[in-house]
């Protein structure tokens, strides 16, 4: 393996080294404005080296997999003025087998991808021919070699398959863009369901409903949940905790949300977008409970941050970020959530998430695809409305947690959640 040569080469001058090499091939098809627009094939290679010299880290990256000497040389140069290493490269440890490769993806031909896109477009058009539809279908196959100077050497293969469909409907000066997509590491994916969900978003928006300013309960659909989870995923990042910028620092074992809420970082789910047997540093992945019944249980760490903080890595290297976030299901059906709401909002997507100071938990977002609920029914789309609140306060004021979790994106599996009171500003 090339990675072994990189390690050998680096170890002539370094005391520790890690190397990885990735190759991937992918194909995609895209439709724009009701028509097939383009077909693409992509071939890519990349190679990374990290070294520790005299206790200092240096790294380098290249796309040229012939350039073994160059990439090692540049990593060694970076190490001369590198940051102190707070870890030793780990030895081999057997990880749990997680499925991330599906033969069926390899077999997908461009013609089949075109038909998948056409079917999704057809279903949206069947509902309303005025909707201008775009769609995409993507498949990828990749191989990754990894090795380090402590004896780890392995090769993993993974696949990916994803679809998306989006419609645009213009009535007067009213423009609605809405759609649905999903990408996982297996072929099996109900693309018709993406189209049906898209149609549902348009159906609920047939009327525009007036919104008023004030406090009201808000249901976050799975794809709207990042509004509540963004601050939390930054807050459990071990590096933010160690540096003191996370508001969750010092709160392990304390109650931070409603006791019905449990959230786990779980890279061991077969075919999940963030799944895999090992993390980027060769450490076996593990499921890490973040919040259990409202109590903060763990933060996420990579090797170096764990070393600095005096704890063990959770297999979230490099970067201490979540892999797949899994929110536990509750007991209320989505239908009941709507049915028992006298006046409130239903949020599918927002504009402006993450601008400002997301770590603090404060959010202030423009509702993009969102609806008004009155007397137990969705009565229409709301527009030109801002929603504001604080994640940490909101998660203490949960009214209901949905009984069915769904993938939103490919790395978040969550039910809808209804928050008791959030601030709504309308004109």
């Amino acid at each position, binding site marked *: 393996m090339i990675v072994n040569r990189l390690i050998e080469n680096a170890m002539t001058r370094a005391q520790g080294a890690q190397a990885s090499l990735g190759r991937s091939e992918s194909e995609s098809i895209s439709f724009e404005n009701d028509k097939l627009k383009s077909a693409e094939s992509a071939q890519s290679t990349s190679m990374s080296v990290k070294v520790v010299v005299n206790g200092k880290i240096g790294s380098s*990256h290249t796309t040229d997999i012939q350039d073994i000497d160059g990439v090692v040389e540049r990593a060694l140069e970076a190490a001369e003025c590198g*940051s102190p290493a707070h870890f030793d490269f780990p030895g081999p440890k057997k990880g749990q087998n997680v499925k991330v490769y599906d033969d069926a993806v390899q077999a997908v031909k461009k013609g089949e991808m075109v038909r998948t896109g056409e079917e999704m477009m057809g279903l949206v058009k069947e509902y309303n021919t005025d909707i201008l539809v775009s769609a995409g279908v993507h498949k990828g196959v990749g191989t990754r070699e990894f090795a380090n100077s402590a004896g780890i050497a392995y090769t993993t293969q993974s696949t990916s398959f994803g679809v998306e469909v989006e419609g645009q409907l*213009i009535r007067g000066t009213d423009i609605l863009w809405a759609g649905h997509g999903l990408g996982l590491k297996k072929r099996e994916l109900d693309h018709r369901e993406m189209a049906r969900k898209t149609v549902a978003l348009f159906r609920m928006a047939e009327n525009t409903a007036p919104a008023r300013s004030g406090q009201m309960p808000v249901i976050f659909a799975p794809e709207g949940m990042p509004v509540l989870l963004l601050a939390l995923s930054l807050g459990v990042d071990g590096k933010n905790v160690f540096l003191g910028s996370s508001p969750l620092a010092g709160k392990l074992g304390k109650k931070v949300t409603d006791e019905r809420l449990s959230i786990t970082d779980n890279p061991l789910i077969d075919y999940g977008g963030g799944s895999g047997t090992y993390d980027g540093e060769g450490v076996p992945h593990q499921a890490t409970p973040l919040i259990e019944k409202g109590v903060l249980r763990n933060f996420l760490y990579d090797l170096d941050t764990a070393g600095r903080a005096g704890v063990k890595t959770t297999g979230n290297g490099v970067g201490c970020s979540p892999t797949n976030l899994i929110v536990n299901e509750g007991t209320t059906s989505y239908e009941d959530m709507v049915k028992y709401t006298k006046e409130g909002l239903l949020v599918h997507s927002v504009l402006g998430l993450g*601008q400002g100071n997301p770590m603090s938990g404060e959010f202030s977002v423009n509702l993009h695809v969102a609806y008004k609920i009155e007397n137990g029914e969705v009565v229409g789309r709301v527009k030109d409305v801002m929603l504001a609140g604080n994640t940490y306060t909101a998660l203490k004021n949960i009214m209901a947690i949905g009984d069915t979790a769904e993938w939103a994106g490919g790395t978040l599996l969550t039910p809808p959640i209804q928050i008791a009171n959030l601030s709504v*500003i309308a004109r």
Partner: protein
Amino acid sequence: MRERMEKALRKSDAEFAEIRIENATSSWVTFRGEDLDSIGSASTLGGIVRALVKGGWGYATFNDLEDLETRVQEACESARLVGKEESRFAVVEPVTDVISADMERDFRQVPLSEKKATIEEYNKIVLGYHDRIETSVTSYNDRFRKVWYSNSQGTHIEDERPDLVVSLSATAREGDNVQRGFESVAGGAGFQIIEGLEHKAEEVAKRAVDLLSAPPVTGGTYTVIINPRLAGVFAHEAFGHLSEADAVYENEHMKELMVLGKRFGPDILNIIDDGTVQGQRGTQRYDDEGVRAKKNYLIRNGILVGRLHSRETAAKMDEQPTGNARAIGYQHPPIVRMTNTFIDKGQDRFEDMIGDVNLGLYALDMVGGQTAMEMFTFSAAYGYMIRQGTIAELVRDVVLTGNVFETLQNIDKIGDAIELPPIGGGCGKAGQSPLPVGLGGPYVRIQNVVVGGRQQ
């Protein structure tokens, strides 16, 4: 390289084909808190072939340059799978041009140790400013791209595109209250633009500490004055994206909404996209289809007079190409993008803009923005309430929203000077992010802006 590219293009049986190859070298240094967090360098080499057959596009991207001819054939094959109608693609004169970067102090010649030392100094200033400063993120990123472009119509361009960004961020904390100050300096220029930023480091730390005692802005509808840095993101989000012709050219409803000659704002409003402004981040001599960049008026005296085009959208709308087909890198085809977008200067002095505002908001600097065509959002780094015509208390969490068909009409005063600050950040569209763009403008006053936040 030129010979290899032209030889490979001869394998094309498409109506149009092009190859863009890019070699990028980059380096980075990041401090988080007192410690160096990451330091390193990268070099990438890759390319894309784009082919047009009967209105359908085929793309092939690659890192391995050995099989250039095979990649051309692959792209042609993909295009044939897609194409079903007549191709329309604006004609431009073929050009041959070689552009060398003028950096003054070439950052590729600066040792990594000096890059580190320079920002370590800024990082120390941030951390040492006050007891309440909890941590910092101070980062340096440079990238030098050499781009070779050849197409089947005889154009060959070699372009050097340097880009350099230093960002400074301070986090202040008091119990659960965590606030941030942020600044960046960026440009398509040399190392000298990020030297001597000690004062910026201090400002960033001061802002974070000051915001600890600032209340969140009370949500509601206000008269808002935005400063030049925020006016840039406003012009970009409120109107720039809607003027991109790929949102319009195959969309009959949108063509009606965006018909040239339609009024979008008051007479005092002029909005320009200009890819030729010296030293700005969105500036390049040619776009990624070999079309020369130029100054394009989008709104003149309140009236829609132009839009941004690729060669395809221009041909399909019977308008002229504008040099706005841009790609973030070799893994992507060019799509219609802004370059440097700004509201042109007006005639009002700042004192006259603020004087008659009883209760309003003065919003400064940008942290971001997003649009869904009609509705848009943009966020200020901080703001001050305006009370009885004067600047009053500092407020935080300032997020503004608007609707393109109303908000531009509500502009009633425009400042008499324009600033184009060299700030970092970039634009995202269709999975291509961040694309360096230039942002700036004058002070602008807008009536009836919905400002998010909790109510009292």
